[in-house]
């Protein structure tokens, strides 16, 4: 038996049953890709993508048993399934709002749809990777699609500039992650999380420390933590607003999930290295994100900085490398989806009207013109600020709990102080909406879909904020799944 035969002998047919969601999403992407060549009907394209994704989301519910398939390169467990479900659902919400926006901005490309879906596919691969190879490849599929999405705005220079900055930083991040993977490979001789765990155990030497540090740097770059955040505001401002919403919510959450997965499944016993690293990054992110956001006059940019700050809040949970921290991270990231997407869709709904810009001045008196939409925005703002009964409070509460339970008092204090700073700019938006007279003339046309999306998300923010038990339960279960997965092959 030659060595090649030995290698091939152990490999059977992969379990395609558990890959149904990915397959459906892939087919949807390709279908849209082909359809886009033949039809000019944008409604058709968006309908096909939404229906495809919806079927994909539903198909997740049919999977009852997890599996490790594709020869150990793909893990389907509750953790990945739950995240996939949320990712798909929120992608659908982003997609349905894309259509009116790009149409009014005259930047229509059918490519938007399948690029988003490809990006989604990358995230799905990323969150269900038990292996650095599939993690890397999924991360790249996501990033590459996103670079294009940012730059894809007809005749808009800013879009190109933002995309380029994003690309350069992202490229450097990719290189750093690759280097980290190389060092880990050299250290353990494997890409597999379980193998890495068995090889490393709690023995950490300088090589592993540097590898993990580089991995953290690279992932922080992708998750836009300070000091690697420079691309974020530019790319967010440059992209079409629903795409920004997609990036700020869906791709970020996927990144957090994969950060959690890598850190917990590959280096659970070396948490002394990474929890401290993430804690420092999170602290700096909170401080810089919030203080810079204070100065912004453009609400979209302000939300971008606020998302940096939220990266800080969410990653702060990793400073407490135990079940509580992971639960807090999962919970906060899941609920952050609602706030972030809602906020950006709100912007997009108004921005598509001719004389409206994202400038804070234009928010004056919005509550008089659109009391209900303004109320939704108020809910988002207070949620991001972390005021109960919105869900943002519950997220911060979990992070507080985790931090204090691990005695990371300094980070808790930083979180508190920066939260108070953040009140400065979130309240400004509310104040401009409610406490000034309108300056912009004319009526806004809001699409019913946009109204529905913003309203639905706002109501969800309130409902989950008041009754977060379900989401806490989900987070708890996911955490336990994650922890049970350690070292299992």
């Amino acid at each position: 038996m030659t060595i090649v035969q030995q290698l091939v002998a152990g490999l059977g047919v992969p379990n395609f049953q558990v890959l149904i969601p990915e397959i459906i999403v892939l087919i949807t992407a390709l279908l849209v890709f082909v359809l886009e060549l033949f039809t000019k009907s944008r409604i058709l394209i968006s309908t096909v993508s939404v229906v495809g994704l919806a079927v994909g989301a539903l198909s997740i519910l049919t999977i009852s048993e997890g599996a490790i398939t594709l020869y150990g390169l793909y893990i389907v467990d509750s953790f990945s399934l739950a995240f996939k479900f949320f990712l798909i659902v929120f992608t659908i919400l982003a997609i349905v709002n894309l259509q009116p926006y790009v149409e009014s901005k005259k930047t229509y490309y059918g490519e938007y749809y399948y690029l988003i879906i490809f990006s989604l596919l990358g995230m799905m691969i990323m969150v269900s990777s038990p292996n650095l190879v599939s993690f890397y490849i999924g991360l790249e599929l996501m990033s590459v699609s996103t670079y294009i999405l940012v730059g894809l705005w007809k005749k808009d220079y800013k879009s190109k500039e933002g995309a380029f900055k994003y690309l350069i930083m992202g490229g450097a991040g990719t290189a750093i992650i690759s280097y980290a993977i190389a060092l880990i490979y050299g250290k353990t001789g494997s890409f597999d999380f379980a193998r890495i765990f068995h090889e490393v155990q709690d023995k950490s030497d300088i090589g592993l420390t540097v590898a993990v540090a580089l991995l953290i740097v690279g992932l922080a770059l992708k998750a836009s933590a300070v000091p690697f955040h420079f691309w974020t505001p530019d790319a967010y401002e440059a992209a079409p607003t629903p795409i920004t919403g997609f990036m700020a919510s869906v791709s970020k959450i996927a990144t957090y999930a994969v950060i959690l997965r890598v850190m917990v499944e590959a280096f659970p016993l070396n948490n002394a290295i990474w929890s401290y690293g993430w804690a420092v990054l999170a602290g700096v992110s909170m401080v810089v994100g919030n203080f810079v956001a204070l100065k912004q006059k453009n609400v979209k940019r302000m939300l971008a900085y606020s998302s940096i700050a939220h990266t800080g809040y969410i990653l702060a949970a990793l400073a407490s490398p135990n079940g509580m921290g992971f639960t807090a991270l999962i919970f906060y990231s899941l609920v952050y989806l609602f706030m972030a997407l809602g906020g950006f869709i709100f912007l997009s709904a108004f921005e598509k009207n001719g004389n409206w810009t994202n400038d804070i001045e234009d928010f004056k008196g919005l509550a008089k013109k659109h009391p209900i939409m303004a109320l939704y925005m108020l809910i988002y703002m207070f949620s991001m600020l972390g005021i109960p009964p919105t869900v943002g409070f519950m997220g911060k509460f979990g992070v507080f709990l985790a931090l204090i339970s691990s005695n990371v008092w300094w980070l808790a204090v930083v979180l508190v102080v920066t939260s108070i700073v953040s009140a400065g700019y979130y309240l400004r938006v509310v104040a401009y909406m409610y406490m000034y007279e309108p300056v912009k003339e004319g009526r806004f046309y809001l699409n019913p879909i946009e109204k529905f999306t913003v309203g639905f998300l706002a109501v969800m923010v309130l409902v989950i904020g008041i009754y977060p038990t379900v989401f806490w339960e989900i987070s708890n279960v996911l955490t336990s799944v994650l922890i049970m997965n350690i070292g299992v092959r």
Partner: protein
Amino acid sequence: MVPYEYYVALSGLLMVLGLIGVIVRKNIIAMLISTELMLNAVNIAFVAFDMKLHDVVGQVFVFFILTIAAAEAAIGLGLIMAIYRMKKDVDVEKLTELKG
């Protein structure tokens, strides 16, 4: 035989050079080139470890890095062309429409 560690050290040096390139260069094309340099450095490390480990998975990984380098280069150059068409310049200091 040269110890494999030397190859890794070399890859570290190239990596640092690439990083410096990304930071200090003012020409946007050169920045993109520097990222390519970084990815290449990684390739050396992978192959060196691979040979040390008597494994070939590292070389398989190099394939993916090649793919991604190609993808990033293609998109980056497309963007550079677009930027150049609009701005008639490739100086990074002129890319200042997004600020704050």
